[in-house]
């Protein structure tokens, strides 16, 4: 009873750490991804399309939002109703792009391909960047744990599907994408959990 709330361990020293170069990333990523060579390569297989190109597009939106001054980000987040609507938009938009039919359309319809390049940064990456600082450990943990378990389920769906889900990719690609999704689910969860073991300064850096 003697060592209670009042005498918790002294907070660890938190050195100031420079953040990633958001602005160059926000410009360079979409430009690089839009080049014909990169598009051709990243859309050549289902795994690269779903697990490299799309997350990088979302990352570009995340970087763009993070490049804004903190006050502007706060104002936008307040204006759209806070963290929850941002998270909802991000999950709905990313769910749409996980549908195999959407992948097919992006490959066959230039309009949908353009929509992919616009919506993934704007409706997935940017809302996540707006929501993230407003989420505490509870919110972030809930996002990471749900993301990991649902990614694993999605991977299983792709692996177990009795049908070829995409016209553009063979069944072998689909199975491979499923396996990668399961691997990513495990890696995401283990990575998140590992950050909780780290000292606060390291955890800050990992965010």
């Amino acid at each position, binding site marked *: 009873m003697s060592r209670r709330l009042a005498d918790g*361990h002294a907070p660890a020293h938190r050195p100031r750490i420079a953040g990633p170069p958001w602005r160059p990333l926000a410009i360079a990523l979409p430009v690089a991804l839009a080049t014909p060579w990169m598009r051709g390569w990243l859309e050549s297989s289902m795994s690269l399309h779903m697990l490299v190109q799309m997350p990088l597009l979302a990352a570009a939106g995340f970087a763009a939002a993070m490049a804004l001054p903190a006050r502007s980000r706060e104002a936008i987040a307040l204006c759209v109703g806070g963290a929850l609507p941002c998270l909802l938009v991000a999950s709905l938009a990313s769910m749409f792009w996980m549908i195999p039919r959407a992948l097919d359309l992006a490959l066959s319809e230039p309009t949908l391909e353009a929509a992919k390049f616009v919506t993934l940064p704007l409706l997935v990456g940017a809302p996540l960047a707006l929501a993230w600082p407003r989420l505490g450990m*509870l919110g972030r943990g809930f996002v990471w*744990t749900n993301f990991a378990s649902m990614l694993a389920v999605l991977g299983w769906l792709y692996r177990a599907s009795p049908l070829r889900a995409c016209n553009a990719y063979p069944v072998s690609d689909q199975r491979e994408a499923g396996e990668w999704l399961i691997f990513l689910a495990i890696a995401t969860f283990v990575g998140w*959990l590992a950050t909780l073991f780290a000292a*606060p300064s390291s955890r800050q850096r990992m965010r």
Partner: protein
Amino acid sequence: MAAQETTIDRGAHPAVLAYLCIAMLVLLLMMVFGALMRMEQAEFIAMGPMWFYELMTLHGAGMVGVAGIAGIAILWHFLGQYVRLSAPVFVANLVLFVAGVAMILAAVLGGNFHGGWTFLHPLPSKSMGTWSPNAAALFLGGMLVIGTGFLLLHLDIARAILAREGGFGRALGWPQLFGRAETAPPPPTIVAATMATIVNLIGIVAGAAILSMMLVNLYFPDFGVDALLAKNLIYFFGHVFINATIYMAVIAVYEILPRYTQRPWKANRVFLASWTASTVLVLFIYPHHLLMDFAMPKWMLVMGHVVGYLNTFPILVVTAYGGLMLVYRSGIRWDMASGLLFVSLFGWSAGVMPAFIDGTIPVNYVMHNTLWVPGHFHTYLLLGMMTMVFGFLYYIGKSAREMRERLVDRAAFAVFVVATLGFTLSFLSSGRSGAARRYAVHLPEWVPYDRIASVFAVLVVAAVAVFATRFLLRLPAASVDAPRATLAGSMT
């Protein structure tokens, strides 16, 4: 010592009391269901196999849930004295738990689902017409809702621990264990809460994945689930969750016995090492439930065997030995709370031994599907884990250090210990004689064991009814800050 003598024991938050009330009511109901099942096997009553399996499903799921909420109520009560926890999240977990239980009750009593609490694939989706996919979905959905509540609560516990300790490594005392840190190690409560949180976060995420897969499979059977993978994930999640309940409840022992004996429970290196070891081992122990699955990779079975042996001892030995050392020549004043907590250490120690024996592969081949295994987990959970909860109930219900205990309570204590031993030994003896597990109808040569078990089961229910009633009668006192622990040597 002087400082501890003036210490006021904190009263329980109303939400903790709500948890405990619900836990006790559900516990009693599930105990009655369990007694009815034994009476059916004993041929004292004739409810038929359909009802038997429905009650078995409810009994299993309900008892795991009761252990979960009672364990986490103890954890929350004591951990809240070191870190700032969120009461709304704690309440949200209870609301989700009640909602999940309602879904499970509707699935079983309304939809006739009786696939067991382990809901092993493909049973939920292949009922041969005895229940609908909707009933199975309601059951699996209920589990998912309960899991979501526990996930949220464990995330909040993690947040609070990290805010104080900085990282899980520090909360497990790694700087003191592996380094030369001069600072004091974290209190045992924080170490235990950290361990339970880590393993439950991992288990719940695995559980959510398999539950979602099985829900999809119910309505779209073409999306096949690998039965062996499903079994692995279910046992991983289920075994981790039920193991974690005792690691949460043992906090009552770490916190209350030192108040009685006026001796601190020290988080020394051996203590910290044992909790770190178990944090890892408890994640790899579950394959001992799959030793009969010939399709399992051999290395996993060997791992289950070896880890099953290793994980039996670290925390148990440290806690049981620590408890004995704490009590030895302390002049402890025995009352219901301290007595039950002390007995719980015996229940835990005795309860793991049948599992230790069953974890040996050649023994497992002949014992695992017998009543030997229910004998193990009833000893472990009833005389170990739940006895810690009963001890906590008596402790929190006290309004003064020196409270005269009624004869009925002391009689209930004696009846509980003797009847639980009789009840669990009946299970173990049945198992030894080959009585099959999960059978509604028993062979004539097994029935005598069932009859003895039925009598003991009724006595256990009666004793627990006394514990629960006493707790409910003392509810007003339970929320008040008061000196509760009868101090060692304070009475002559």
